[in-house]
């Protein structure tokens, strides 16, 4: 399950739809990935850094007060928010930066970023391994996430604002791909999620799978059994694939991916690709896309920049088709309430992205028996969102 074929297809989803200029680079990346997976030195370096630099394993925390508050299933939080730089993004950024440096001998990395977390993670990894780094970010997002822009600069990266199109994540990806097309010989593109042309969905999954591997070990130790339900938010879908992958073969473990419902599906102002999208080819692969009937890509909306994206990783589309993962959405307001609830009840402020997953737990936990177990992936911390939430709540700081 979740296996892809040689051309990078998960069922009918995935593939490789890019300008020819990039094809040799993707072939090179695919080869480097195969080499890296078997290279003891590479793997040793990666896993040692995950431990000593990122701070893994991240804790699996029993949220006792949230559990009592909701009065149903036991809720565990996988604390990716405690990873270095404050989100799961560092796992992948570090892996790809090492790949660029150790296997592919590149001088420079580039990346796109929405919320800024992947940009910060890539800038961090580039600083650590000694690579030049440029980050593309939509101007809508540079305003929403000004703090992260400064963090990236502090880490020695250059942030390049993208003023085209909707000025968000998808436009940052277009611009990063254009840069890569131009500088492909010395540059590696660190894609931040399980999306884009083959082999990115597999590559990013490989580096993020540590989340689920740890969770499985931790829950078995704490509870002596596997959880009944996993919940994670889905933008491109890397934190969710990272958690789900280790559990896919256990059919009694249910999984829910939570998309951004924005102001509600009926308003059209959302980023729920499964609820409101259709099949399309966008930014390198075939998946569900929010588009009009002419195949032009629609603007999306979410309170969280990290989920504000018009398409979704092809493996998610496949997992949905075969019924292995259920996909739902949480609105901006539900996410904001979850953001506040977790802060108050547990003293943990989640990223607005992760708050979507918490919002689903709030809905579903009370309906489950007290001996059932939910694991929520707390993919990032909310420090970056505090100013934005204050603004939304009409509080001037």
């Amino acid at each position: 399950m979740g296996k892809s074929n040689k051309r990078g297809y998960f069922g009918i989803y995935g593939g490789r739809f890019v300008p020819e200029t990039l094809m040799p680079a993707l072939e090179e990346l695919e080869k480097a990935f195969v080499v890296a997976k078997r290279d003891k030195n590479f793997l040793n370096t990666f896993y040692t850094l995950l431990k000593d630099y990122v701070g893994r394993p991240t804790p699996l925390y029993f949220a006792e007060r949230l559990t009592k508050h909701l009065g149903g299933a036991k809720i565990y939080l996988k604390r990716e928010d405690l990873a270095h730089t404050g989100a799961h993004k560092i796992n992948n950024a570090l892996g790809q930066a090492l790949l660029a440096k150790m296997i592919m001998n590149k001088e420079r990395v580039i990346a796109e970023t929405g919320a800024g977390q992947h940009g910060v993670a890539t800038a961090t990894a580039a600083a650590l391994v000694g690579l030049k780094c440029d980050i593309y970010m939509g101007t809508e997002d540079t305003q929403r996430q000004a703090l992260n822009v400064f963090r990236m600069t502090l880490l020695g990266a250059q942030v390049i604002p993208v003023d085209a199109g909707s000025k968000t994540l998808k436009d940052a990806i277009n611009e990063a791909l254009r840069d890569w097309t131009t500088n492909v010989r010395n540059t590696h593109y660190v894609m931040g999620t399980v999306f884009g042309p083959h082999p990115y969905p597999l590559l990013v999954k490989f580096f993020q799978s540590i989340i689920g591997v740890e969770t499985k070990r931790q829950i078995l130790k704490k509870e002596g059994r596997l959880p009944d339900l996993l919940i994670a938010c889905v933008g491109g879908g890397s934190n969710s694939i990272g958690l789900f992958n280790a559990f896919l073969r256990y059919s009694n473990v249910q999984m829910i991916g939570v998309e951004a419902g924005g102001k509600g599906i009926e308003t059209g102002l959302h980023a729920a690709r499964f609820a409101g999208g259709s099949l399309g080819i966008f930014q390198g692969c075939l998946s569900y896309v929010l588009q009009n009937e002419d195949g032009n890509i629609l603007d999306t909306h979410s309170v969280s920049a990290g989920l504000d994206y018009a398409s979704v990783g092809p493996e998610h589309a496949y997992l949905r088709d075969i019924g292995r993962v259920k996909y739902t959405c949480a609105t901006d307001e539900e996410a904001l309430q979850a953001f506040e609830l977790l802060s108050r009840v547990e003293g943990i402020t989640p990223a607005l992205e992760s708050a979507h997953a918490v919002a689903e737990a709030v809905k579903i936990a009370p309906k489950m028996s007290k001996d059932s177990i939910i694991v929520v992936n707390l993919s990032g911390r909310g420090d970056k969102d505090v100013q934005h939430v204050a603004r939304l709540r009409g509080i001037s700081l």
Partner: protein
Amino acid sequence: MKGFRVRETLEILKRKNKKAFIPYIMAGDPNLEETEKRLKLLEEEKADLVELGVPFTDPLADGPTIQAAAYRALKSGTTLKKILDFLKALNISVPIVLMTYLNPVFCYGIERFFKDAKNASVSGVIFPDLTVEESEQYVKYAKKYEIDTIFLVAPTSTPKRVSKIVKASTGFVYYVSITGITGAALRLDKDFKKHIGYVRSFGKPVCIGFGVSTPEEARYVAQFADGVIVGSAIVKKFYENFSDGRDFIKSLREAI
């Protein structure tokens, strides 16, 4: 309407020892009435083929000039469907090659697209984000409806890839002159002559585009190819001043 007119045009030119001049414009920039005027002008000024762009919201192989043209075209409500209807009603003899990102075609329906394109007298297609590995369905229907499929070779393409791409291409092979996006400065690799020589060694016509912006550049690259495509520079000229467009087209035609 006779099919496969791209390959026919290139063959005739080759026999006459001439090079193809292939201007590019964006359909619907700023509206389809204006596109009709520009197409007629290009025909009058003896373009051998015209490459007609279909606007897309996320044109990732294009630089700022064509991005802006796509934006203007979308703003005027131009869609693939409207372009095909427009071409069907248009009375023009220069063969049209549609350049479109894949998603509008995918959403339109692959076979339906080629069928309607044939009815609209489209002679060839270029999909900048279709790799030869993913092209089976597209090539199949193109053949069925007698439309040439033009694939791109990049300076980074390995010999193995070049061979696959040339095989899948009919009409001509589109040689991307630079490692980059449309409208960027023409900076040829030091291996350019050797690489394009290899692409031509298969015997199919090869036309060169991306970054060719002046008659001088067009003349220079024409000597290594069977034709030259000029896009961003023409789009820009027309956008700034329609009447300057004609002189510019004339000068390009003379140079090639």
